[in-house]
Every structure is written in structure tokens, then in C-alpha cells.
């Protein structure tokens, strides 16, 4: 049927075939490849920001280390654990969707949604602490930590984590819509599991971005 790695999930016999595809495997390849390309463009977007941080670190190692020590490391670590766990729930939701387990799919996605919301709440608290510490650009009492190259690093932290939070918010909407479509039977499982799979891919990617943002901004204390 296919030359890909043998796996139960790789036998997309549950897929409802659409135009213009000749076979379920071909349709599946196209679905995943299109999403991987889109996520590749997102990787370039965040990658360019991370590349700038690495450049600052090479040019001003001490200033970046000082600025990084002002990051809320434990909130960042807690958020990493939260978003990794939310990814597990999304993966289990996708697994359930392929089995045709409608309620389990919706349930797992709603669990992931709750964790994603918790991530945003913690991030908000963290931004509040950053404001208190005078780390924010333009607003608040500016801290001396912001002077010089350290300020550039801190500004990049806000741009990158803010952009990530925006993506996470979009991800929350995607999870909510997908859960609703599944639970209301607007999408049939497992025939239309691709909807759940693509929503999952987006969420996992937002997770991957954070996996890199965490060490780049919070752990650059050395």
C-alpha cells in the first residue's frame, strides 16, 4: 500500500477520498506535506528572531547573561512543562480521532485547551513581574538593566515571546473550533480525522517554538 514505515496509523484506510486524489495515501501525503511547508515558514519566522539573539550573544556575552538572569526562570520552566503536557493531550486526542473515539478526542483537546490557557495566564503574570522590574520597553520605570545591549536582548525577548503568545492564542482557537466540530459531529471520525491531525500539528509546532525560546531567553545566564 505504501513504502513508508510500517505503522498502524500509516494505513489511512479510514480517510474519505476527495478530488483530485487517486488514493488515500496520496491524499494523506499531500495533507501532511502542505502543513509541514506552512510550519517551515513559521520556523523561518521564529528562527530569524532566534538568530538575532545568537548574534547579540556573540557580540555582547556579558550583557546578555546579565539580562537573562532577570528573566523569570521558574515561570518559564513551569510553562515549558505545561505546554509539553498539553502537546501530549493533543497527541492522545489525534490518536483517539484515528480510532473514531469522538468524545475522547474532544475531551483531550479541551484538556490541552485548559493547559494552553494556563500557559497564557502564567505568561501574563510574568509580564506583570517584568513590568514591575522595569524591563518593558517604553512603559514603566526603566531599570538600569535595560541600558545598552542588554536592552536589545530584553526587547527581543518581548518580541519573540509576544509573537509566540499570539500563535498560542491562535492555537487555542484552533483547538476550541476542532473540539466543537468533533463533539457536535460536524466532522465525522475517523473519516475526517485529518482536521484533528492538522490542528494537532499546529499546536505541536507552537510547542516546538517554545522548546527553543526557553533555553535561548531563560537559560542564557552563563
Amino acid at each position, binding site marked *: 500500500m505504501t513504502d513508508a514505515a510500517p505503522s498502524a496509523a500509516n494505513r489511512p484506510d479510514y480517510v474519505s477520498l476527495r478530488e483530485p486524489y487517486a488514493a488515500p495515501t496520496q491524499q494523506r501525503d499531500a495533507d501532511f506535506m502542505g502543513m509541514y511547508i506552512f510550519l517551515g515558514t513559521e520556523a523561518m519566522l521564529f528562527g530569524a528572531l532566534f538568530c538575532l539573539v545568537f548574534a547579540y550573544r556573540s557580540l555582547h556575552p556579558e550583557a546578555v547573561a546579565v539580562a537573562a538572569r532577570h528573566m523569570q526562570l521558574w515561570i518559564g520552566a513551569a510553562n515549558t512543562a505545561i505546554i509539553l503536557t498539553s502537546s501530549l493531550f493533543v*497527541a492522545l486526542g489525534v490518536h483517539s480521532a484515528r480510532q473514531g473515539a469522538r468524545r475522547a478526542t474532544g475531551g483531550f483537546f479541551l484538556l490541552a485547551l485548559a493547559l494552553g490557557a494556563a500557559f497564557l495566564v502564567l505568561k501574563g503574570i510574568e509580564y506583570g513581574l517584568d513590568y514591575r522590574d522595569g524591563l518593558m520597553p517604553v512603559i514603566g520605570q526603566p531599570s538600569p538593566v535595560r541600558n545598552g545591549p542588554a536592552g536589545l536582548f530584553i526587547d527581543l525577548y518581548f518580541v519573540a515571546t509576544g509573537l509566540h503568545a499570539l500563535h498560542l492564542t491562535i492555537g487555542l482557537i484552533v483547538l476550541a473550533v476542532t473540539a466543537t466540530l468533533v463533539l457536535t459531529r460536524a466532522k465525522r471520525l475517523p473519516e475526517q480525522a485529518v482536521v484533528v491531525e492538522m490542528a494537532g500539528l499546529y499546536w505541536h509546532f507552537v*510547542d516546538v517554538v517554545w522548546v527553543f525560546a526557553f533555553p535561548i531567553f531563560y537559560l542564557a545566564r552563563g
Partner: protein
Amino acid sequence: MSRQAMTLVGVWVGLMVLLTLTVAATFGPFGGWTPAINMVIAFCKAALIYWFFMHVREQGWLARLVAVAAIAWLLLLLALTQADVLTRGAFSH
């Protein structure tokens, strides 16, 4: 719980272990190597997520290549940027 679901939970356990390691390494005795160690751990976590959670494992080689193509472009971007910042003034008289 099915074997596939067990695999997913196992991957999550691995991710949490790596998270613990990366935080521990930050306070460890690795000096200038710490950022490199943390980036290697981040790559391992991303690889686990892509391979298992993002279904790269189930794909043919073409789709796998597409999934990781951005890594090649990002390495070019990083290498050429660092070639600039690390050699500034190195060739002046």
C-alpha cells in the same frame, strides 16, 4: 491503553526528563558549554515532538524531507550571521 498511546506517554516522560536536565545543566559546572548543552537538549526535544507527536515517523521520505527542510535554511542563516559577528575586526590592520 493501546501500545500507540503508551508510546505517546513515554515520549512525554522523555520530554519532561529533558526539561529537568536542561534546567539542571544551567546551574551545573559546564561554564561556557552550558548554552551548547541547552541547545542540544532543545534539538532532542524538538526531534521527539516532530518524530512522534507530529507524525514524521509515519511519513514517506519525501514528506520527512519537507518537514525538516527549514532546518537547512536556518543553519545557513545562523552560520552566515555568526560568520559576520564572530569575525568583525579579525581581518583589519
